[in-house]
């Protein structure tokens, strides 16, 4: 008699219960982006699920960072950019006329490749954005600063020098400070553009562990050039090539049995 509960048949790399039950949060339909006359994104349709980690991979210039930046309208800052198609977050069209871009960027935080702390104290790096958004009381600020630093797995390393300059931190610590600064204002989504590419393996491991912790509370979309990083941290992976979304599936599927030949050539390092 089969007395123990068996897991699902593992040969076909099934989704976990968590991946299965996650609801869609970001949806694009026929999204196209032009830099002047050149088309950088060619009709992207994607549905990104809530509270999971989704990785974007692909060779340089394939459009993955450009696409990521569509989700908080960072491309608006570039004059020659024109975007068509739909991009919805939680059902809301983020390119609609009445959208407050500042509010949108509060909902959709971003961490960049190179850590960019303000030339202020560790404490002020986090408190600054909170004050900007209206929090004034010191007790409340103290609380959120501590919570954010703990959330970014940095508290124990910096709690004795909160008022020293953030620029005195190591590269890995600065990047985690930037993550703390992002989560302080409680966004729904965190976009990460190669957040560990400038870090050594130990600092990278810390950031990766942090991402796996953060997905309990946030939806994370990450651009990475490091394929093993995608396999270690992401639930879903999207492979981009020259402005096209070539394949989008469970990370285990993409890295063990991709459907598309170009995806397979890329993940196995045979890209021509």
């Amino acid at each position: 008699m089969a007395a123990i509960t068996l897991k699902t048949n593992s040969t076909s790399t099934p989704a976990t219960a968590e991946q299965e039950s996650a609801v869609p949060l970001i949806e694009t339909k026929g999204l196209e982006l032009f830099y002047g006359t050149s088309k950088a994104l060619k009709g992207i349709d994607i549905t990104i699920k809530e509270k999971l980690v989704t990785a974007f991979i692909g060779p340089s210039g394939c459009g993955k960072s450009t696409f990521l930046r569509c989700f908080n309208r960072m491309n608006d800052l570039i004059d020659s950019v024109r975007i068509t198609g739909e991009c919805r977050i939680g059902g809301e069209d983020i390119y609609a006329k009445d959208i407050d871009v500042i509010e949108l960027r509060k909902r959709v935080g971003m961490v960049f490749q190179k850590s960019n702390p303000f030339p202020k104290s560790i404490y002020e790096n986090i408190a600054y954005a909170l004050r900007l958004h209206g929090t004034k009381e010191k007790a409340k600020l103290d609380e959120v600063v501590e919570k954010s630093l703990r959330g970014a797995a940095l508290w124990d390393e910096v709690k004795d020098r909160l008022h020293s300059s953030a620029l005195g931190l190591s590269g890995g610590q600065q990047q985690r400070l930037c993550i703390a600064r992002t989560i302080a204002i409680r966004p729904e989504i965190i976009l990460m553009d190669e957040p560990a590419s400038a870090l050594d393996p130990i600092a990278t491991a810390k950031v990766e562990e942090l991402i796996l912790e953060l997905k309990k509370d946030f939806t994370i979309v990450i651009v990475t050039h490091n394929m093993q990083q995608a396999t270690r941290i992401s639930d879903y992976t999207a492979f981009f090539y020259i402005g096209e979304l070539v394949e989008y599936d469970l990370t285990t599927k993409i890295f063990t049995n991709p459907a598309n030949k170009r995806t397979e050539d890329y993940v196995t390092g045979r890209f021509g």
Partner: protein
Amino acid sequence: MTHFEQDLASLKETLLTMASRADSSVARSIRALVDRDDDLARAVIEDDSILDELEKDIDGMAITLLSKAPLAKDLRLITVAMKISQNLERVGDEATTVCRRALELSQEPQLKPYVDIPRMAQTGLEMLRDALDAFVTGDAEKARAIVPRDKDVDAINKQLHRELASYMIEKPTTITRALNLMVVSKSLERIADHATNIAEEVVYLFKAQDIRHLGKGQNGSSNS
């Protein structure tokens, strides 16, 4: 513990669940044979599918872990886990073979008192338990010491074959039973082989040293 370490721990845990299931299948198959308990024999055959599923689960977990590019001992652990699970699945298959033969043997009077067969099963199980114990405790020397014990089981198997052949020569009506017992004996001998394979994998896991297929007196212990 990092997320990767948690996944490795869960792989190990599934492997140990599988080991205890395989162990119990062998022990119950011998009880079914000796006690002529057909219900027990059928239960062991039915439970074998659990081992099959666990083997697939372990392979699935291992493939996912391998895609994360583990190195050094982590890499060895994952590949070794796949091999150990395959050996455990085969141990389960041998237990079902013993049970199928037990079901046939219970149709006729017992040919002879079962002395050597439980002894072989006992030695095979002890080897299996020691190999898994060495896996859990990281004791490569304990694993290495298992390998020569396989010879004892091989010797009993050969002796039993000779004895059963003499029964068949003397009295052709014993042929069916003697052949069934030969198959049982061979299955138990294979279980000891699988335990040996597992022990060799454990040495590789902890010492990164391949001790398979070495000649006499070369169990590699001088290099450890």
